[in-house]
């Protein structure tokens, strides 16, 4: 895992790519560089399987992305220049509309909010 992260880290610095707050981080469901290129494809594929066929245990789940990668400061993947999703999307100027409908907050944080 560390061996994979080291070249990615180097690339981030040398090309002026955004530095992201990756939240809890940890071992991603796939190689981070591969995910940078392909996350939208696998998310689209899985969303159709989930909505239409009811398959709910796929590994490319948006909810799982948020669960690990929401910032530990505000429990969100959007809203700041270094947020996990928004950081790159701002840099690439790609509009991200997932979170107009989907929750951008970690579900454990939402549960806490509700119990208050």
């Amino acid at each position, binding site marked *: 895992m560390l061996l994979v992260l080291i070249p990615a880290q180097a690339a981030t610095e040398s090309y002026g790519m955004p530095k992201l707050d990756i939240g809890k981080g940890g071992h991603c469901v796939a190689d981070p560089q591969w995910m940078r290129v392909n996350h939208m494809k696998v998310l689209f594929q899985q969303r159709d399987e989930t909505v239409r066929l009811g398959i709910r245990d796929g590994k490319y789940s948006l909810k799982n992305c948020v669960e690990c990668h929401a910032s530990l400061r505000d429990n969100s993947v959007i809203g700041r220049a270094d947020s996990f999703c928004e950081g790159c999307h701002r840099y690439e100027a790609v509009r991200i509309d997932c979170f*107009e409908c989907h929750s951008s907050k970690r579900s454990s944080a939402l549960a806490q909010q509700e119990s208050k």
Partner: protein
Amino acid sequence: MSDTDVQRRQFLKTSVGAAAVAIAPGMLLFDMAHGKSEPVSSKVRWGMLIDTAKCATGCDDCVQACNKENGLSGGLSPTDSQWMRRVDLRDMRNGRELSLPMMCQHCAEPPCADVCPTGASFKRADGIVLVDKHICIGCRYCMMACPYKARSFVHEPLHDQKPDVPRGKGTVESCTMCVHRVDKGQQPACAEACPNKSILFGNLNDPESEISKKIRTVASTQIRADLGLNTGIRYQGI
């Protein structure tokens, strides 16, 4: 390269490997989404039998539970979403009164899906009628086609949606029979919340299920049965 450098590199390689081995098992315990990996099948048809005799006048626990589970505001203005509403009926001739919950009837032949120009309205193999909001264009034909007035359009931007129930402006939505709960093996929120157990949820295709047995033994009604839609929600005592 000096001998010390080689040794140092060797040491670093080994320690990185050891660290990976030490961390990996914990990481693999990472909680994947829970739920079935098999697609839903038409061997199951989810439905409900609502016993209006047990449905107490003035009680709206099912509606409240629905609003809470799905993150609805509970407002009653024409632009607020209502997935489930309580309907009070009164027979003018003899004064008989009854209440019942009214929502998407999860038709076997859903008119909403028939008229949808994009294929966003659809019926899942297990009989649950849903809107795929990813491809809904918000034209609202389905709202006009639905004989039960079961669907709502989201007029305003929303915030803090439930992680299991994505909802957004510009799309049509309705009762999902709590599909996220059903897929986990739970009951819909309304059925669970009813204090009188007047909502019986189950598999209409399984002759041994409680709901099938009850439908065989008591008189049940489909609302607007004349339309031949074969609804998944049945009522008893109306």
